[in-house]
């Protein structure tokens, strides 16, 4: 089962001072201007992961990012700085998006907004050029759960345990979805380059 609850953190008791701490405290006490500063600072990072998770749909990503920040505002008074604020916000965005994906349960359209893709070239192992646009397009075309696991594991650096908890699946299922996603990525990348 998906959960919107902020995951329990496993960070040690002593953590470096969070550079957001003053803004977060002020926003937690109702300072909307401080919260806007938080929004401006973290928007692009949050938007990137949400946009990828929903398969490159700008309108859905925008709605979900708005929902994420509204939920963050509501939850800020309870934030206890037991983890970095950016980590907390990022996980809130991911969980909000996964909840929406689950509610769609397979009704998701898979088209990608090509206009948004940046054509940044990166060489692949065979010397071919896999552009950022190629990668983004193929990620967006993956089945939603496989896509989510690939994004969270390979791009965002989550652990299988964390992904499994957020997606409400067994750790073994997370690994299997990653294997499936990577296989599809390879097949489709070869199709793009041929």
């Amino acid at each position: 089962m998906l959960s919107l609850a902020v995951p329990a953190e496993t960070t040690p008791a002593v953590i470096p001072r969070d550079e957001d701490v003053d803004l977060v405290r002020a926003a937690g006490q109702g300072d909307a201007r401080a919260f806007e500063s938080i929004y401006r600072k973290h928007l692009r990072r949050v938007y990137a992961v949400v946009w990828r998770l929903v398969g490159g749909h700008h309108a859905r990503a925008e709605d979900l990012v708005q929902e994420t920040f509204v939920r963050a505002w509501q939850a800020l008074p309870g934030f206890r700085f037991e983890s970095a604020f950016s980590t907390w916000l990022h996980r809130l965005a991911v969980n909000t998006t996964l909840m929406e994906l689950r509610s769609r349960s397979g009704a998701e359209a898979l088209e990608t907004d090509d206009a948004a893709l940046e054509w940044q070239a990166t060489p692949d192992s065979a010397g071919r050029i896999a552009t950022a646009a190629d990668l983004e397009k193929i990620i967006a075309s993956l089945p939603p759960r496989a896509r989510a696991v690939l994004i969270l594991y390979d791009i965002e650096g989550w652990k299988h345990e964390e992904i499994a908890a957020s997606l409400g699946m067994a750790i073994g299922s997370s690994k299997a979805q990653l294997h499936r996603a990577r296989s599809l990525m390879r097949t489709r990348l070869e199709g793009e380059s041929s």
Partner: protein
Amino acid sequence: MSDHQLRWQLRQLPRELEPRRDLWPGIASQLPANNSARSRRWPWIAGLALAASLSLAIGLGWRQMEPEISTQDSLRAQLVQREADAMTREYRAAMRHFSGAPMPEPLLPTLLSLDQSAIDIRQAIADDPQSAFLLQQLQRTYARRLTLTQRAVTG
């Protein structure tokens, strides 16, 4: 292409993207209402927590004195009952802020279950009026019910 090579390519993708429009106005329009809800909600929950803590402390203190002062049992029972009544009054006053608000249907079974739990705990307190533990359970149940209600109303 190996897993490592694929992952390396994926890691090169931009970690930040700019949305097509400014999302702040849509967010800001929802903040004042949340802020007022916040000012109603948190002091109440904090008050409940304080009441439960005090009750628990009182209860533990009495437990230590029990062998010597058994005649205080009835006084303790009265205080626990009084705390439960006060907690219930505060809870009902807080819930009145949300009266008439529609609740999402999937949430109804949970809310009903919490309501029934509160009734059961109050009955248990009436049967065993010296139990500070039950008072704490009542506080948790009310706090949970209020939090879910508030979340459902404010989205």
